[in-house]
């Protein structure tokens, strides 16, 4: 069945691509079918179990099965995949290279599910690479900055992938098996050097995809350069594959190591720095895509920290954030896509005042932003709360302050995002803008509402997370860290989410009604041109919205940080390597005589060193 599902995906991808060549509508239809049909089959038929399908290639057993942990991640992939596929139909209408978009989209979904069902390293790696290159096609789909952004993405992905490849061949040579379970169970049998080397290599591999600090520089460009319909998958689901790998490595490998706690602390701090630095960079962005891209990196930093700390509460928080981040970031990217579709730009400095034009987009963005900022009663708060409690109880005081700083600074870009698109003055230039079509707004609203529901009833998700964590060897958390919708920490502190929600709703309704119904009769809407501007009447074309250098005061405060970009060091390294390559290339002078000399010298050298070579 599983093989069939993957084959349907693969065949569907190719058929969609071909169908798109014949007739755009046929392509759309095939696309929907080839995402939704296998996705539904996956959800309906694939139950958690160790071995579901098995193949042998090249004498290597490829074993497929769904672990509870993978099941949790597969929910994200399938959910986002289906939502985004519906969204993409409208989003991609009238754009170029739609066929390739559909093709890569389906393949990435397939690859992600493939990664999750892989029970051995080889199929894991194969699907990992398929995911990489299919997402690579997406990154460069718009044909802008292909050689810089695309290559950067691919080089970093390759760095990660090849680290993984190296680790897995070493595992195989030492343990004689490519199975994930064998690796984890027999980890102690590795030599001490390899016990350090393999987790480090795998951490690099997964760190690249989950954009951990020094390996993150591909991410902002890659996220913002792909089509928005896909970026949601990119940031919501694809990066989570890195997290999935990190969970496996950290929980199943480093716990068996004496030096493991050190590795974990380092990773946790890297996650913390990622969260803080990415947040600061997000604040400086003037493009919604870039802002969300950096924000995604920041959120992944929280997740990585949670996973690395690895106490039950931290793990619960990280896993919860995995799902919730997919929801709200998916919704936000969809919103940006809708704005791009309707206005043609995503620059904060160009668009403003869309709140009345695109109300549904605004509402879903608002909910998602509240979730992102971690404000109760939305789901972002649940994971933040658990993460902070876990960190404090695990004695990571400074780390918690760092993360707190990051999440406070996140309000800045959260506001910048909402203000940039939806608030501010309404301009005649955007007067014609209409709400995005239903097929775009409904998925984003659905995701945002799910975030809302999970914010008060997180137990809907906790059950899955709980079984995933038990699979990883944790005790059951139900009743210890949460009961129904009440969260506990190990110290006995708690937050009861339902009373919070009811209190908020009650007060909110009271004052909203008070303000609205009391004032409604007498109050009328005036345009945003009618503001108190020292008695001046702004002209139609005058846009008074505060846009340029939006966060300048803050940017000035963090200027010493902004000056130091990691990317610069990479660029310097790249330049150096290029110079070295160029120097090396000149060995081939193009001169026959030189080549003859090389031959003679080579012969002479071999003759001279023959003793040391052949004894």
């Amino acid at each position, binding site marked *: 069945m599983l093989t069939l599902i993957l084959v349907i995906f693969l065949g569907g991808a190719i058929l969609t691509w071909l169908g798109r060549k014949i007739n755009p509508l046929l392509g759309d239809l095939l696309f929907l079918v080839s995402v939704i049909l296998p996705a539904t089959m996956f959800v309906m038929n694939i139950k958690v179990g160790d071995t579901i399908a098995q193949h042998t290639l090249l004498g290597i057993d490829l074993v497929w099965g769904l672990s509870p942990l993978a099941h949790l991640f597969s929910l994200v992939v399938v959910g986002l995949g289906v939502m985004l596929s519906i969204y993409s139909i409208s989003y991609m209408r009238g754009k170029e290279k739609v066929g390739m978009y559909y093709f890569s989209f389906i393949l990435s979904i397939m690859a992600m599910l493939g990664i999750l069902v892989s029970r051995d390293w080889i199929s894991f790696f194969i699907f990992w690479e398929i995911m990489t290159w299919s997402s690579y096609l997406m990154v460069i789909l718009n044909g802008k900055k292909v050689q810089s952004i695309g290559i950067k993405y691919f080089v970093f992905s390759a760095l990660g992938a090849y680290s993984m490849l190296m680790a897995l*061949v070493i595992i195989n040579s030492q343990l004689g098996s490519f199975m994930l379970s064998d690796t984890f169970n027999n980890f102690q049998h590795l030599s001490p050097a390899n016990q350090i080397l393999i987790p480090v290599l795998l951490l690099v591999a997964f760190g690249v995809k989950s954009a951990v600090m020094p390996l993150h520089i591909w991410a902002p460009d890659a996220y913002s350069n792909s089509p928005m319909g896909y970026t949601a998958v990119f940031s919501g689901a694809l990066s989570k594959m890195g997290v999935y790998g990190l969970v496996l490595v950290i929980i199943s490998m480093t716990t068996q190591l004496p030096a493991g706690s050190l590795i974990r602390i380092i990773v946790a701090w890297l996650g913390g720095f990622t969260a803080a630095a990415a947040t600061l960079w997000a604040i400086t962005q003037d493009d919604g895509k870039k802002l969300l891209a950096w924000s995604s990196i920041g959120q992944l930093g929280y997740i990585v920290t949670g996973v690395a700390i690895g106490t039950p509460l931290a793990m619960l928080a990280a896993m919860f954030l995995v799902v919730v981040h997919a929801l709200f970031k998916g919704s936000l990217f969809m919103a940006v896509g809708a704005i791009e579709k309707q206005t043609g730009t995503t620059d904060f400095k160009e668009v403003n005042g869309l709140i009345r034009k695109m109300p549904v987009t605004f509402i879903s963005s608002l909910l998602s932003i509240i979730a992102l900022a971690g404000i109760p009663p939305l789901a972002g708060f649940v994971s933040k709360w658990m993460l902070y409690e876990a960190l404090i109880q695990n004695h990571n005081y400074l780390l918690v302050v760092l993360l707190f700083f990051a999440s406070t600074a996140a309000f800045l870009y959260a506001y910048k995002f909402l203000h940039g698109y939806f608030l501010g003055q309404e301009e005649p230039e955007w007067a014609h803008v209409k709400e995005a079509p239903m097929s775009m707004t409904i998925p984003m609203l659905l995701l945002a509402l799910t975030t809302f529901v999970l914010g008060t009833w997180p137990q809907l998700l906790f059950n899955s997370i709980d079984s995933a964590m038990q699979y990883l060897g944790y005790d059951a958390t139900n009743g210890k860290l949460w009961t129904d919708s009440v969260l506990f920490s190990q110290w006995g502190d708690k937050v009861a989410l339902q009373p919070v929600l009811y209190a908020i709703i009650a007060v909110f309704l009271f004052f909203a009604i008070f303000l609205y119904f009391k004032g409604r009769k007498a109050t009328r809407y005036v345009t945003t041109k009618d503001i108190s501007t020292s008695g001046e009447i702004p002209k139609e074309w005058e846009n008074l919205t505060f846009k340029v250098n939006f966060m300048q005061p803050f940017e000035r405060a963090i200027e010493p940080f902004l000056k130091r970009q990691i990317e610069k060091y990479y660029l310097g390294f790249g330049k150096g390597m290029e110079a070295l390559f160029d120097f090396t290339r000149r060995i081939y002078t193009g001169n026959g005589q030189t080549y003859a000399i090389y031959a003679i010298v080579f012969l002479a050298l071999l003759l001279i060193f023959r003793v040391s070579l052949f004894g």
Partner: protein
Amino acid sequence: MVGTPVLFIAIPLLAAFLIPLLGMIWKESVRIVPGLVLMYLMVLAVSLMGHVAHNGPIIEIIAGWAPPIGINLVFNAFTGFLVTLIIFMGLLVWLYSYRFKSNVEYEPARKYFILLMMLVTGSTGVVLTGDIFNLFVFIEITSISAYALTAFYTGRDSAEASFKYVMMGSLASTMLLIAIMLIYSQLGTLNMADVASKIHLMDPTLKAISFILFVVALGVEAEIFPLNGWAPDAYAEAPGPVGAAFAGIVVKAMLYALIRFTYTIFDLSGAFNLLIIIGLLTLVIAEVAAIRQDKLKRMLAYSSIGQMGLVMVAFGIGTREGVFAALFIMLNHAIIKPLLFFSGSYLVYHSKKKYISDIDGMGKLAPFTSLLFALGAFAIVGLPPFAGFWSKLSFLVAAADNDMVLIIALILAVSIVEIVYYMRVVNRIFFFKRTTGLLARRPTFNAYIVMSVLGIIVLMIGFFPDTVTGYIQAAADSLFDKTQYIHSVLTASIQ
């Protein structure tokens, strides 16, 4: 049995001589006859492979003299595998170049096919022969036709490239002769099996020197750094199919010779380390040079050299898995690199200088060719689920089993470089705006078929690698089983 191994050498040689005669009768036969010959040989190769799989190696004795005195041909799983590969590549090259350029006149076409037949003759001879001097002869046949093919376009650059090739080649021939002379003077025999069985009698110093001479001589043809200076020029200046033939046929044959010397004939313990060292050098320097190229074919040439380096490292591992990986890489390279050369030369068909930048935006104009090129690029850098991945994986597994952690790291680092330059080209094809006014060239029908076949094989190996691994495994076993080889040759009797 449809025939005997000697036909692999005799028939193409005969065809090479007959082509001009037949051409006098019917001009089109110049193009058709080589195809018929190669098709027959293909059938022969396949049937012989089947025979070998069941009945063990075929030792054919030429002219009635039993080994070690006479010349013999050995068709076992290993040589059979390579011969099949060579014939198959020859067939594809023929099909592709059947009307590679519609405007090619009768005269150049005649020369071309004669030379191609000679090339096939020489290469199969190199692989099949069991005699060292015979090997030298076949190497010369191969090289000389390769020189001529390099200069096929009769331009200044082609001539220069060819001349460099000739120069290096003649240097190689000299050394080869000296090496053969040394062996003969010491052991008094040139039959490979015989030499292998007596090699311990040889003076160690002379043994080392003769091995070194063999390495240098064969290294020139097998594109080992620093002996491969001719290669980029030759690849770049020769016609597209010739480049493919070099990558798919000549280099394979020469590498075979090198491996035969290392594994079977000589028993030098340091030889494997030497292979690894020169292999790594070749790999690193070729890939690093490739990234800085601005001409497409030149880039492919360097990439080709790099792959050869990788094969050599794989052979240098010295285990059965290593040989398996090496053969697998060779097979993949023999399929993917021609695909790249074929499709690539159509992509830059109208361009004078064949710059990489001339293929900007070709994806729109020539979607099929571009797609195949991309497929080839994806496959050769080892992205799953395409063919190149499995060979790379088997190589890495073999290397890891021998604890070559640093070498693995180095090779993977080089792979990143490889990815960069291939992806840069693929990006240009699909995601760049067309800047030059050059139009795309529609591939001929034959070329379509050839490229599709190659593409399908790439996918097939990618998804079902086990279709080919059986043969490769048998080939690896047969190469590894040195005593079996010696025994089977020396006990062969005239049938």
